[in-house]
């Protein structure tokens, strides 16, 4: 029984049904956010200060996502948070009425980093809708392509975007007391990264000049070069199509990929060693860092990387081919696995727009799926995207992001969810390079310049900003090993003469076809829900990881993941005057999610007129 909040039960044969004794089974309470705002206002009035803040984007090109907090600097507490997407993107509307074959190319443009995963997720949605099964080499090459996309994405986040938050320059400005301690603290992983002290690492994390920063720039190039061998170009591959890929793959292609991939063997060891050292150091200095960005490990993940002998694209078999993936799909609630089945993941999804600039929709066309699972009127297959621009109000609507939930719970998404879910569920087929234990994932990295080594990522006790980034670092060797195993499979397929990379298919001119694609983006969970009617796209709905993470409050008042993580973050930064406050703890909390869209963060210090504004830029992926 995976659902606790949706009105769905299972009979003795495990068949899902809608509970019959409930008058309006999908009804939900809508709370008045004004009560919270009034409390906050009253609290601030008592302290003698109220100030309005301008939340316009702060640069010409950025500002698509913004974050507002009110912080009590005396108590070191966050009082209020609101996450808001400030741009309407409307890919769902752009795709309506188009030929389904356009979807992979158009939806790829939802992101300037993870275009390949959007294209692939779109291809999977079409494969499910039309019953297309790609040939083994097509599946394997898609796996390699998308593993490589992560090898671009994770170093970019860890060293170019989040890394500076832990650099000597930033730490000296926000927690100078840590610098002399870092200077005398020896690194535990010098054997893999070569740094003697934590301060040595911090210096090389300095933005623009640090060696780790500059090395990451180079590694993103290595990944892009490998990617272009299969995708044709980056970030919007030209070769991802429903039914496989559209590029000829030879041993030469594989060799070109391998010469780049091997560089991530050592880099994976180095990166995990660096971040283990840095994060252990912070937490050893002050246990309260465990609360930075902390929230329950309640996460959803689609899984990724299909087995060529299992994936057939069908909805009927999606639970089987989903569980056979190198990363396991499913849902974690407070660190416990509640499902690993793609059909249950799909059936529990809903999207709410009470605090978003959209009209509600009335239709409830799809009441059950093909397996008989009841579907909510708020399920993506039932959703209609109707923008309704309006005034921003913390009491009412404040975001272009919708509020997706699974079983009525806000869900977090990330590369780390992929790793957490797979390690904890321990259902993925065995692999020579990966071993899941239920409490950890062991990664067997082969020799390159460094000797071979078994790395082990352990499920942490606290789920916080540091652990998100630590897990993301481990996703580098994890992704590299999946790419390596698939590379070996590709070699074998070519040797066996199985060189087909795609299958032909036709778009039916009549009737309705329905499907969903589920594949992980660099920052986790990504679904595309598709309905084709009379040969054209009738409805297309995209849920990106940032749709989940940056969600506004649920109709019943639960905080979105960013909002909750920031609410739990203590202010550990040292400053003499409020004007000196930089908000580094909150920035670390938000950045740990690898937020999509250039994100602007505004932090208002209670009892002062000080507003901190910082860019939290990461990928330009779509929210709605």
């Amino acid at each position, binding site marked *: 029984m995976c659902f606790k909040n949706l009105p769905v039960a299972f009979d003795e044969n495990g068949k899902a049904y809608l509970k019959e004794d409930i008058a309006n089974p999908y009804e939900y309470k809508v709370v008045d956010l004004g009560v919270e705002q009034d409390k906050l206002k009253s609290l601030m009035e008592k302290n003698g200060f109220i100030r309005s803040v301008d939340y316009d984007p702060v640069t010409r090109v950025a500002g698509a996502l913004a974050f507002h907090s009110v912080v009590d600097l005396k108590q070191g507490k966050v009082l209020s948070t609101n996450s808001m997407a400030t741009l309407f993107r409307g890919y769902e509307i752009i795709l309506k009425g188009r030929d389904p074959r356009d979807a992979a190319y158009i939806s790829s443009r939802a992101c300037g980093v993870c275009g390949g995963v959007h294209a692939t997720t779109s291809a999977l949605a079409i494969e499910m809708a039309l019953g297309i099964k790609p040939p083994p080499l097509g599946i394997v090459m898609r796996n390699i392509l998308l593993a490589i996309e992560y090898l671009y994405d994770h170093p970019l986040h860890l060293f170019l975007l989040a890394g500076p938050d832990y650099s000597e320059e930033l730490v000296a400005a926000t927690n100078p007391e840590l610098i002399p301690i870092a200077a005398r603290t020896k690194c535990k992983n010098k054997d893999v990264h070569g740094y003697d002290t934590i301060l040595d690492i911090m210096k090389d994390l300095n933005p623009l000049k640090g060696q780790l920063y500059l090395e990451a720039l180079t590694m993103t190039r290595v990944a892009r070069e490998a990617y272009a061998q299969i995708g044709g170009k980056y*970030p919007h591959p030209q070769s991802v199509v429903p039914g496989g890929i559209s590029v000829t793959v030879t041993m030469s292609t594989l060799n070109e990929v391998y010469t780049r991939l091997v560089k991530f063997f050592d880099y994976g060891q180095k990166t995990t060693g660096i971040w283990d050292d840095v994060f252990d150091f912070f937490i050893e200095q002050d246990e309260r860092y465990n609360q930075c960005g902390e929230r329950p490990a309640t996460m959803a993940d689609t899984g990724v990387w299909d087995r060529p002998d299992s994936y057939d694209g069908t909805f009927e078999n999606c639970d089987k081919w989903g569980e056979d993936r190198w990363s396991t799909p499913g849902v974690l609630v407070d660190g416990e696995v509640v499902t690993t089945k793609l059909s249950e993941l799909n059936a529990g999804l809903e999207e709410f727009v009470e605090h978003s600039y959209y009209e509600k929709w009335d239709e409830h066309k799809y009441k059950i799926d093909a397996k008989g699972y009841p579907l909510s009127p708020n399920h993506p297959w039932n959703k209609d995207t109707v923008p309704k621009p309006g005034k921003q109000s913390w009491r009412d609507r404040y975001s272009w992001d919708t509020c997706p939930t699974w079983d009525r719970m806000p869900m977090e998404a990330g590369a780390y969810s992929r790793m957490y879910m797979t390690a904890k569920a321990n259902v993925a087929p065995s692999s020579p390079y990966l071993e899941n234990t239920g409490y950890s994932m062991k990664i067997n990295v082969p020799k390159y310049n460094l000797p071979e080594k078994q790395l082990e990522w352990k499920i942490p006790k606290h789920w916080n900003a540091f652990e998100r980034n630590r897990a993301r670092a481990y996703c580098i060797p994890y992704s590299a090993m999946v790419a390596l195993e698939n590379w070996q499979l590709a070699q074998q397929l070519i040797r066996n003469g199985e060189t087909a990379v795609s299958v032909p298919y036709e778009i039916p001119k009549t009737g309705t076809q329905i499907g969903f694609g589920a594949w992980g983006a660099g920052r986790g969970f990504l679904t595309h829900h598709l309905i084709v009617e009379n040969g054209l796209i009738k409805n297309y709905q995209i849920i990106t990881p940032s749709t989940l993470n940056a969600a506004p409050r649920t109709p019943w008042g639960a905080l979105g993941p960013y909002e909750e993580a920031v609410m739990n973050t203590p202010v550990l930064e040292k400053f003499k005057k409020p004007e000196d406050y930089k908000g580094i703890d909150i920035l670390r909390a938000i950045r740990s999610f690898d937020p999509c869209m250039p994100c602007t963060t505004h932090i208002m210090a209670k009892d002062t007129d000080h507003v901190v504004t910082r860019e939290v830029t990461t990928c330009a992926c779509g929210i709605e």
Partner: protein
Amino acid sequence: MALNKKTLIGTVGYHILGNHSMPPMLFPHLEALSLPDHIKVDELNWGPVAVVQMFEAEEPSFEKVIMLCAIEREGREIGEIDVFKWKGELPDEEQIQACVGDAATGVISVENLLVIGEYFKVWKDEVYLVDVEPGPEVAGEQWTEGMQNAIPDIISTVKRLAIEGVDDRMSLKFLQGDTIFNEETVPN
């Protein structure tokens, strides 16, 4: 005037934004021009960091770079062409890091490209912007009449600048990195 400088004409801008998309829409036409061998045409929308890496790998280096862009600026008519010469200089490091952040995540911006190229020292002798006023941003693949009428002049300006260099018909203005985000020009 040095002749036959190795030159790159690059287009910068988003697609499907009306007049703002003039550079990428004009790219195939520029590519089809009959140009001397030392002049290459390329799209420069694929990320300033990647562009820097491409420049670093280019042997011999490009000595002249001409970027075609369409940035909305006050006081100009749609289709009005300005030629800016890049004078270098850099904004503060926080701004440069913000540029890298945007650049590494897919944001297309000519300012970011200029600043990041300057920081990583890939610009050599001459860098120019041929900047055409697009007016307000609108969605779509169509140009307004003002932009459409300016196309022959735009192509002619880019071509002259690439082949012959700055001439009397171009009123040169100047930009540099420490003021570019204030949309200020600077004296020569």
